């Protein structure tokens, strides 16, 4: 791409999810492989057609060079391979790296996969202990910060600044769960109400258990190739219109602000590349590790006014069938969360919505959708815009 744009540089031609929930019979690598097999099946390609692989990281299996380990396990020998670690932001960033490689002719068909056996591969306390490493080892961890506590401080500041009530915030997990009930592979199968959220176990004020994402066994995968190659393949290609990153800090103590983050800039880059704006989006798949996060992202992506985002959930506009459905698969709060797979499922769901035919879960007339991934404590951001037609 002589002008450096990635607009329509690649298409996603296959997506896959592993079995999700408690899947005791499978390793983390096995979950990735199952998702990759399902993604490849959608394309009609052979494993030997994959000449690039990107994956993220694992907290549950002791592999250092995870990209190489994944290639080895899958029996592929690509010319392009890396492990990308920007936390939950990794899947969208991997899609950007894949697009860059394909646009430059450094790879033709890239497999992107991520996932872990977090529910059964490790005890809950071990998972929490491993995740504690997200806090700064020298200056934050000695005080007993947990990941929920970091996000709780962000929620607290947002509530202070905009007057958001705890009761209204409880609508986010409830709406997300309602959407998850429409997804056959979602981890959570029972409806919840805002009252259930408020009655769930307090974790770190103001966040309760149902404000926090799941701990799942899950793997996700997607196959990315050039638009030219995509024409010969089995499935309907979904095109990348725009994508942008922005990284502002890693540890919350170094964040420039607790109410303004990098999603505004990452989405600006993506919108500019796509030549589209927030008003053009038919749905949004937003990173939702905690209930406050999609509200913040909704505002930073320009989908609603600052400080008023919660009304989108309390009014029903975020439900499938609403004005702009959010997290139509159930997000990480209700569909699945297993390491970097959490954000990847947002991309998988966007592809499926744009292909159409999802029955009760389908966003009617979906042409263009937006996905946001973030990693760390709202540290690393990547926004992408996908569509049915190259435009």
């Amino acid at each position, binding site marked *: 791409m002589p002008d450096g744009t990635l607009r329509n540089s690649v298409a996603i031609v296959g997506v896959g999810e592993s079995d999700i929930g408690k899947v005791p019979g499978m390793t983390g690598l096995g979950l990735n492989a199952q998702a990759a097999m399902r993604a490849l099946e959608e394309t009609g390609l052979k494993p030997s057609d994959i000449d690039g692989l990107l994956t993220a990281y694992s907290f549950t299996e002791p592999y250092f060079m995870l990209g190489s380990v994944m290639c080895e396990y899958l029996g592929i020998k690509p010319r392009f391979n890396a492990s990308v670690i920007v936390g939950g932001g990794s899947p969208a960033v991997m899609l950007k790296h894949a697009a860059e490689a394909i646009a430059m002719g450094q790879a033709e068909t890239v497999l992107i996969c991520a996932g872990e056996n977090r529910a059964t591969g490790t005890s809950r*306390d071990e998972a*929490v*202990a491993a995740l*504690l490493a997200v*806090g*700064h*080892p*020298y*200056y*934050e*961890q*000695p*005080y*007993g*910060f*947990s990941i*929920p*506590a970091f996000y*709780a*401080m*962000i929620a*607290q*500041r947002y509530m*202070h600044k905009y007057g958001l009530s705890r009761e209204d915030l409880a609508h986010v997990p409830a709406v997300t769960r309602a959407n998850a009930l429409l997804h056959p592979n979602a981890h959570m199968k029972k409806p919840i109400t805002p009252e259930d959220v408020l009655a769930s*176990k*307090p*974790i*770190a*004020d*103001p*966040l309760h258990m149902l404000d926090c994402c799941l701990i799942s066994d899950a793997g996700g995968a997607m196959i990315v190739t050039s638009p030219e190659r995509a024409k010969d393949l089995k499935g309907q290609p979904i095109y990348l219109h725009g994508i942008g990153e922005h990284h502002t800090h890693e540890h*919350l*103590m*170094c964040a420039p602000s*607790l109410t303004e983050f990098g999603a505004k800039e990452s989405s600006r880059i993506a919108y500019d590349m796509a030549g589209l704006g927030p008003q053009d989006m038919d749905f949004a798949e937003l990173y939702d590790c905690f209930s406050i996060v999609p509200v913040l992202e909704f505002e930073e992506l320009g989908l609603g006014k600052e400080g008023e985002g919660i009304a989108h959930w309390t009014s029903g506009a975020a439900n499938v069938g609403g004005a702009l459905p959010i997290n139509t698969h159930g997000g990480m709060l209700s569909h699945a969360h297993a390491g970097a797979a959490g954000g990847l499922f947002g991309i998988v769901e966007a592809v499926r919505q744009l292909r159409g035919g999802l029955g009760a879960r389908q966003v009617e007339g979906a042409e263009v959708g937006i996905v946001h991934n973030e990693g760390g404590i709202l540290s690393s951001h990547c926004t992408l815009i996908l569509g049915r037609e190259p435009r």
Partner: protein
Amino acid sequence: MTALPQPTRNADSQEFWDAMQQEKLLLQECGDCGALDFMPRHMCPVCWSPNRKWREASGEGTVHSFSIVRRASSPAFASRVPYVVVLIDLAEGPRMPSALVGDDALSVTIGDPVRMTFEARGEEKLAVFELAK
């Protein structure tokens, strides 16, 4: 029961932690652009000057945000729940992570004035805060 974490010194933070054992909180000041910073490091994150100076903080500040932790981050903190973690805006400007202690800690709200105190961690000391009102 697992012991609570103690200060860990490295080449960037040796003086910072040594001073804390004397009940002093040190900030880093850039010898060129004057930027003040909490996290000890080799260079100024604003102008990249290697000219670092230590400046003692007053220990006064306000609560930028907080959370009352009901489920401990690790077994070492389990006997402390509920406990309060905070981000403090120091009077000098930089923001630092800490804990709020004292009988009234659970009544904290954003903007509350706080003052520094110290908590024993084994043979070492760790800077924490208490409400100043």
